[in-house]
């Protein structure tokens, strides 16, 4: 945050975009573009962690249930875009929905005519459902603090994951396959097809950059300060006229939206979703990644989460995945509790002969 004031505000974003493009070019040159698939998935996962950065790092509210919001987003999209609604086709409501392009006619793999919800409509439904669930869970849960809030959200995640496994609508333990591509606009389509791999990598990059920009704006405003105030001293924040309960609920909702948004994109990209996405283990991993990235450091959590998830998805850690993951997180958190980016930045500044900003500030004042 302090660093930003001296550096042109958009420079980090341009740098990040530059790195994203170079990575793709590097992979093209070395013939490893298939790796872009895992990188794209990691970017979508990073969006969930960005939401947690906001919720936990800035507003100080713990959630061990964000995997569930990711799953609610993904599953709503998956169910609506794969379920056959042709029974509705002849009703007036069905006709009306078809005219509004909410329901679209197409053929299934066997050539039968089916009627499914369009991806955009499914996306809106997913966000709507997420809103409903987040408010329903957040309203009572956010009256709790610390460990109690963590337990409540963990319980919520477990319930969602058990519901998904137990319901045939969501494909039980198999999850849902065959989720269609999501035509965003023009020729931009969220899909896992090999031909669209590069395009989809850039869609994910653009989404992540856009969200980073919006969140940075939010955090450097009266809203960001109010959230930080709630984190630091809730009583004092309330005494300053901040409706702390409402703010906590709003930021919980916002982080749930981010998780669900990631879930929807992820599901269309990979063409399916399974119940493990809602599991407690996933939720805990998101929290661990946020912690490893420095919790309140938006850039840190994004970079760390993308890198570690990528390594994990590429299978670098083999069957020891969780163990190596855990060790890495412990090392980062003990050696650099603010995330690896801040010490790295300080080191770079020293190397480049730039003076420490805080020293400079002391002199100015």
């Amino acid at each position, binding site marked *: 945050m302090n660093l930003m004031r001296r550096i042109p505000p958009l420079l980090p974003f341009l740098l990040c975009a530059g790195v994203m493009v170079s990575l793709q070019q590097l992979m093209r040159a070395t013939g490893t573009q298939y790796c872009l698939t895992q990188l794209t998935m990691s970017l979508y996962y990073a969006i969930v962690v960005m939401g947690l950065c906001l919720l936990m790092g800035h507003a100080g509210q713990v959630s061990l249930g964000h995997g569930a919001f990711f799953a609610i987003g993904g599953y709503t999209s998956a169910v609506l875009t794969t379920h056959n609604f042709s029974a509705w086709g002849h009703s007036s409501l069905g006709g009306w929905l078809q005219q509004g392009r909410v329901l679209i006619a197409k053929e299934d793999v066997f050539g039968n005519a089916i009627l499914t919800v369009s991806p955009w409509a499914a996306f809106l439904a997913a966000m709507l459902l997420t809103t409903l669930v987040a408010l329903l869970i957040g309203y009572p849960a956010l009256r709790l603090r610390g460990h109690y809030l963590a337990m409540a959200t963990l319980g919520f995640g477990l319930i969602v994951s058990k519901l998904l496994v137990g319901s045939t609508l969501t494909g039980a333990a198999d999850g849902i396959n065959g989720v269609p591509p999501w035509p965003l606009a023009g020729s931009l389509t969220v899909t896992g097809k090999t031909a669209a791999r590069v395009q989809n990598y850039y869609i994910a990059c653009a989404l992540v950059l856009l969200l980073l920009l919006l969140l940075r704006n939010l955090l450097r405003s009266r809203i*960001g300060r*109010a959230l930080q105030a709630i984190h*630091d*001293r809730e009583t*004092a924040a*309330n*005494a*300053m*006229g*901040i409706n702390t309960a409402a703010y906590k609920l709003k930021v919980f909702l916002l982080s749930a939206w981010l998780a669900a948004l990631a879930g929807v994109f992820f599901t269309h990209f990979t063409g399916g979703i399974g119940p493990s996405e809602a599991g407690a283990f996933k939720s805990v991993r998101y929290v661990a990644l946020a912690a490893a990235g420095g919790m309140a450091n938006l850039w840190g959590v994004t970079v760390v989460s993308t890198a570690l998830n990528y390594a994990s998805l590429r299978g670098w850690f083999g069957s020891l995945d969780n163990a190596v993951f855990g060790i890495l997180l412990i090392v980062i958190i003990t050696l650099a509790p603010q995330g690896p980016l801040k010490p790295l930045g300080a080191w770079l500044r020293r190397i480049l002969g730039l003076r420490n900003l805080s020293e400079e500030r002391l002199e100015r004042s």
Partner: protein
Amino acid sequence: MNPALSSTPFASDGPSTASTAVQPLLEVENVRRSFGGLVAVDGVSFRVLPGQIKGLIGPNGAGKTTLFNLVCGLLRPDAGRIAFQGRPIEGWKPYRIARAGISRTFQNPSLFLQMNVLENVMVGRHRRARRGFLGCALRLPGQAAEERAIRQAAMQQLEVVGLAHLAMFPAGSLPFGQRRLVELARALATEPRMLLLDEPASGLNTKEKEDLADLIRQIRDRGITLLLVEHDMSLVMRLADEIVVLHHGARIAEGPPQVIQNDPTVINVYLGGNLDHATSSQES
């Protein structure tokens, strides 16, 4: 009920010093609050007139901070009435009371330690700005101007307390006395009608106390009414227009400093001399 209440000459007068012509800014009427078996505040009444500096004193455990927390909404009264500008506010959440125009400082300065000094004061401007989540995330037109206005107003308050040169310092790096002042600037930034100061002089040295007294007078001259809880008797006696004395949760005296200074009950309570009084208050 506390027998000490009926045994004092001043309590029976009621809030006599309050003129009937002016509407009081804050009215506290028969407010009572207990924690389990302990009655912390027992039927206390007093009024604060606009433009006054009202002092609230009493020995440790007299219920001063509890009463304070009742007024600013951190605690709910079990019974009684609290009105601000004629409007009942008892049972309101602290943020609503803050928006109604009552701001406060805490006994232990509670700054937002992960922010710098200026940002702390900028939080005080929260209720004076409007942009919500969407407006801030999208930087909608006017947001930048609003942000600048917040920064300027906060800077002004820092100048009032004389800490403008520390604006960019981390709040956690300041010594105790300066944290007090930052907190005061933050409370002033909300543009309150009334300011509640919880032991503003505790932990300050003599010089800092002098500066604080000047500052409090300045604040009053700007038209802000003050209610202060204070242990430092000489400071309260010099500053306050009127003083309420609490003992064991009950009001035992109220009046101008000269009267309070010579009040036998108050002297007894502070010097612990009168055996009768000590036994009677134990019975309560």
